[in-house]
């Protein structure tokens, strides 16, 4: 392991953050059954990607920024956002991170460096580059982390942006979370590199940019790769494309239905569409959260008691988030017209 391997305390921090994301999102998912109608629209979970998210953000410094997609619950929790405010946003309440105006797809917490999330595939990639240009001009060695999916790399915005980022040596790390699917489409069905058995990080060659593929279910591996990319960016040597291979453990999102139909999370598309339970079950067996806990326990970094304590603290934290969010009032109707113009 590289010199910048996180120490024991930091590894516990990483595990704790992973568990916080997982538990938060389990509460999101349960809301559909426990409190029908409280979450509306489309909600996307990051279960399976926690190691990638936390490993990527573990070198985040004040002044850095992160931007992501509609699948955006995990990042702000790691960066310091209050899960109460995050849950309240997902419930459309006035105490939400975005005062109930944005919802699950658009979590934003500028105070914690989480700059904005677009629901349009690929659209956030240039936003990240723009923030990186700002950082470059400020000259304080700040970096921007840009998260997006494998499918997004087939949107023109991806190619256009990576070319400019490379050309301008922007301090930006492009983290592609490759979960193997774009909704119900597998990568090999929609990506020429994947169809040819190549890693998606090979796309970096079209932008004269380093491209690396990493096991996104191993937070320390992600940490190693992303922190090297971050160091490169901070040093003014430009961006890196990191392909982080994960598996999403929930369906793409909750079902899409008009009002009146109760929403829920269906089974993963590997099962419902492709009849491939084996694939899904293998992924479940590799679930990064219990796996990393196991490794920490095995390595003597975490005792089972400490692990149980973390679990119960996190459970309590997320229960409190649900309780808080359920009690938070709806915004006033006037606020619906308030933030269109600055």
């Amino acid at each position, binding site marked *: 392991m590289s010199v910048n391997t996180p120490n024991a305390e930091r590894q516990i921090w990483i595990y704790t953050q992973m568990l916080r994301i997982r538990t938060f999102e389990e509460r999101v998912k349960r809301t559909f059954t426990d409190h029908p109608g409280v*979450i*509306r*629209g*489309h909600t996307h979970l990051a279960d399976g990607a926690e190691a990638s998210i936390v490993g990527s953000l573990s070198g985040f410094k004040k002044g850095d920024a992160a931007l992501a997609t509609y699948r955006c619950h995990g990042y702000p929790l790691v960066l310091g956002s209050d899960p109460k405010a995050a849950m309240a*946003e997902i419930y*459309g*309440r006035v105490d939400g991170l*975005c005062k*109930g*105006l*944005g*919802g*699950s*797809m*658009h979590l934003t917490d500028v105070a914690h460096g989480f700059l904005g999330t*677009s*629901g*349009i*595939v*690929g*659209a956030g990639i240039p936003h990240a580059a723009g923030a990186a240009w700002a950082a470059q001009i400020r000259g304080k060695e700040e970096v921007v982390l840009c998260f997006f999916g494998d*499918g*997004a790399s*087939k*949107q*023109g*915005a991806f190619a256009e942006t990576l070319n400019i980022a490379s050309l301008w040596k922007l301090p930006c790390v492009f983290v592609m979370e490759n979960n193997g699917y*774009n*909704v*119900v*489409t*597998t990568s090999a*069905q*929609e*990506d020429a590199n994947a169809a040819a058995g190549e890693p998606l990080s090979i796309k970096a060659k079209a932008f004269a940019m380093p491209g690396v593929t990493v096991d996104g279910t191993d937070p320390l591996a992600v940490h190693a790769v992303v922190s090297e990319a971050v160091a490169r960016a901070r040093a003014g040597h430009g961006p890196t494309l990191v392909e982080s291979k994960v598996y999403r453990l929930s369906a793409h999102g909750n079902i899409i*239905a*008009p*009002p*009146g*139909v109760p929403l829920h999370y269906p089974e993963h598309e590997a099962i419902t*569409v*492709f009849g491939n339970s084996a694939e899904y079950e293998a992924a479940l067996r590799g679930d990064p959260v219990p796996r990393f806990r196991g490794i920490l326990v095995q390595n003597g970094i975490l005792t089972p008691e400490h692990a149980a304590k973390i679990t119960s603290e996190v459970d309590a934290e997320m229960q409190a988030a649900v309780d808080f969010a359920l009690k938070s009032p*709806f*915004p006033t*109707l006037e*606020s*619906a*017209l308030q933030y*269109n113009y600055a």
Partner: protein
Amino acid sequence: MANMPYIAAIDAGIHQEMRRDPSVLYFGQNLATTENHEFVKEYGHNRVRVTPISETAEIGIAVGAAMAGFRPVVELYMAEFMLVAMDQVTNEAPRFRYMSGGQVKVPLVLKAGYGFACGWAGQHTGTLTNLFAGVPGLKVVIPSTAADAKGLMATSIRDDNPVVYLHHYLLTLEHGEVPDGEHLVPFGKAAIRRAGGDVTIVATGWTVGLALAAAETLAAEGIHAEVIDPRTIAPLDLETILSSVEKTGRVVLVDQATRHASVSQIIAADIVEHRFSSLKAPILQVTAANTTIPYSEPLEASVLPTAAGICAAVRKVCA
């Protein structure tokens, strides 16, 4: 006649045309990913394909395939996703016939949902109809019933021009009687959804239902509203609207879009040019508030047009 939901009626329209015409293609994201997909099974992968998330290429490929003799139908899911490819929609597809002096035609259908105001928040719930309505060479279809969903889809596919077919997401599961067998609904022919002599209400898509509900309430008050659903907004059946205005002299226009992005303003402007002398009152528009759509449920409801809002506007023009 079969009773079926709007969403099934759209598929029925595509099937109708794919069966009769081997040049019809159907493709887009997240469809046809297994051999069990109903369109793949019937028409094969040559004609039915899944694409990456690449709307510019998808629509551009449709333009090219159309110029080369096929009739592509592109599944786009949400109208907003066309925004990344607006050049292909408004500055490529509808231009090539013209710029080539009539050498090519570009028959294609861009199928996209819109208006999904049920918690989809700021970027997925737009009513983008007017972006397309004014583009020469482009036709724009907005069915409000299951029967029209089928018949207008079939007509869209047969039309030799690029057609933006906008289905309303809130109507997805609305059932209706749909003619069996070949069913075509002509373009440029409005439907009078309810006859009445006191006031003309023009509404499209999901707001047709609001207008009909309002008309019911108003009837109880003795105000008889005529509710017109243009069904296609390019071409627009101005004639039917103007005839109604001649009769009623009073007009309320309903649109789910924000006011300055609405089709209702197109209609208002046409009426005041062509039937000014028939008008007895201001033309009122009932539209969405001038705002990005909020996520929170009560806020979302508060910014959309309502039946009560339509009633209020009608009472005003009939006062």
